[in-house]
């Protein structure tokens, strides 16, 4: 097996608060191979964005501590001096943020902002950088790219802005693209276009993509590998096909149940997972999902083991036979 592009092992992130340190992300491991699309799924506040942001060093170092190991192309990222980390960001690892409305600095034109990134990493004239920005805008499917490059963010629609943000992210040909809910703030039709664009970028540029999302529909459409996060931990991870056909964790069942079926009779209402995820710092002992779990057992108040095959694991107490009986009933009751 070749060495993965990005390998995160036992990542933990904790904040210093007034009432002492609070752990928001715990024991997160995931690896991304060259050209692979890995989806990190979870509800808001499950620590999915935070994990990836701290990998990039974009957390606030004054009140956040990051533990574990992160290896990118054999290089450990967490102990990298800030200056080298900076050279890596934008050039080798790019980041696409959730809300294209606020992701661009309002006072500079789109072209200037793309050129700024190119010039931060390459010795290139301002003119050439602008020309490249226009080319990139054309590549992400923007009509009249030369004209758009001269416009300011507020003059573009949400979809156009997200395209511009993506063009900026791929401007230095990154090996890895981290996309934090890139479609959440967009209309459904535009969502599909942006996802198509991301897929096209993978084939054109060969970039691996980490797609952070809470939309299982997006995962089904895009991912090679799925990592399900709940309350700051990875509760299930494995190849997308396997996670969809044979989900191990009850939380994953709930997420899959929330996809509206395209065929058959229309359900009266979509099943939802009752309750809300625990607040950071108030995660219950044992399995964090236990209070909301339809297949809860007595042992669930103790630390759950990691079960499953090497490629597809979950953090759960259920045995195979218990799972087989519990899953159909939860689907019915939902």
């Amino acid at each position, binding site marked *: 097996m070749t060495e993965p592009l990005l390998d995160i092992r036992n990542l933990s992130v904790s904040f210093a608060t007034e009432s002492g340190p609070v752990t928001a992300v715990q024991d997160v491991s995931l690896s991304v191979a060259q050209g692979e699309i890995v989806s990190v799924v979870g509800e808001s506040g499950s620590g999915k964005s935070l994990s990836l942001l701290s990998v990039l060093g974009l957390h606030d170092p004054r009140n956040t501590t990051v533990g574990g190991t992160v290896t990118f192309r054999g290089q450990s990222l967490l102990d990298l001096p800030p200056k080298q980390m900076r050279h890596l960001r934008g050039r080798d690892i790019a980041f696409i943020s959730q809300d294209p409305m606020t992701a661009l600095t309002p006072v500079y*034109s789109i072209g200037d902002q793309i050129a700024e990134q190119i010039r*931060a990493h390459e010795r290139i004239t301002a003119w050439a950088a602008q020309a490249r920005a226009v080319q990139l805008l054309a590549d992400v499917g923007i009509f009249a790219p030369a004209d758009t490059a001269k416009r300011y963010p507020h003059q573009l629609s949400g979809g156009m802005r997200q395209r511009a943000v993506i063009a900026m992210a791929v401007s230095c040909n990154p090996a890895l693209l981290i996309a934090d809910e890139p479609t959440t703030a967009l209309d459904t039709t535009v969502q599909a276009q942006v996802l198509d664009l991301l897929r096209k970028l993978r084939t054109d540029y060969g970039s691996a993509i980490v797609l952070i999302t809470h939309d299982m529909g997006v995962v089904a459409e895009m991912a090679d590998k799925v990592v399900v996060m709940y309350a700051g931990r990875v509760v299930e991870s494995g190849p997308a096909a396997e996670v969809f056909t044979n989900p191990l964790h009850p939380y994953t069942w709930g997420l899959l149940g929330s996809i509206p079926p395209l065929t058959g009779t229309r359900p009266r209402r979509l099943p939802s997972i009752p309750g809300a995820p625990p607040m950071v710092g108030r995660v219950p002992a044992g399995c964090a999902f236990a209070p909301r779990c339809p297949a809860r057992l007595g042992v669930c108040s103790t630390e759950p083991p990691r079960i499953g095959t090497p490629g597809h694991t979950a953090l759960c107490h259920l045995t195979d036979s218990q799972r087989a009986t519990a899953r159909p009933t939860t689907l019915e009751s939902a």
Partner: protein
Amino acid sequence: MIATILNRLIQMAFVMFGISVLVFLIFFATPGSDPAARIAGRNAAPETVAQIRHDFGFDRPLPVQYALLMKRLFITRDLTSFVNRGQQVIPQVIDAVPATLSLVTGAAILWVLGGIGVGLAAAAMRDTWVDRSLMILALIGISMPVFWLGEVMNLLSQSRFHDTWLFSWVPGLGYVPLTEDPAGWAKALVIPWLTLAVLYIGIYARILRANVIEAYSEDFIRTARAKGLSERRVLIRHAFRTSLLPFVTMFGLDFGALVGGAALLTEVVFGINGVGRLTFQALQNLDLPVILATVMYASFFVVAANAIVDLLYAAIDPRMRT
């Protein structure tokens, strides 16, 4: 752009007109008082009052009175002060303007540079001891009244340490016109500039720090970092640039007000015969024509400074361009 400027100038003219009408009404149409008697000053002879009543057209309708007054203010410029025995008012104001402008412009340059320097340094090193000490210094600067600081500076530079190498270069109090002696002008104004600027450096640094730190929580700052830009570039090109609007707004208001006479205390402490001091003396003597002229002059600067600020907005923020 030219259309915007023209538009703004026309608006400015309207505002000025409105102010002049208001000022006129307050001074000349307040019921129960005789404007002629007030213009004539205390213990005026009845003939003088009658003369003024005729000159200013107080026996004619209000619009005519207004027109006559504006004509005397702006066209013939022969408005005279009766309290000061027939001194012309407009030349008095025009003589006072260079002193005030010199004082306020110099101080403004100092406080803009100082405010940006201190504010950015504090924001870049926020929550460290550097930030805390800078903010405490800024607070001290804000808390020191300008008349007290001015007197202390005078005490140090004019008497106690005047004979030492530290302050031997400081000339006596007063204003030296720039056209007569540029070096003397600067020497005479250095200490007044610093004194006036200290308060504003404190205010502007604190405001700028707060705005920059607020900008730091914006998504686009994270984008800028994710692009691999240096911390300094993120601070100056992204956080500072987007925090400029409140800074510029405040500058417009403060600069306009100071040129319009709010630098009074500094002018009095340092013996600079500026517009503030002129207004102050006129108020003491109830010298109505001078008050009228200085109020009109002050309003002009406030309105003009705000018009310039509006134009700057468009330059700073593309969202303001329509």
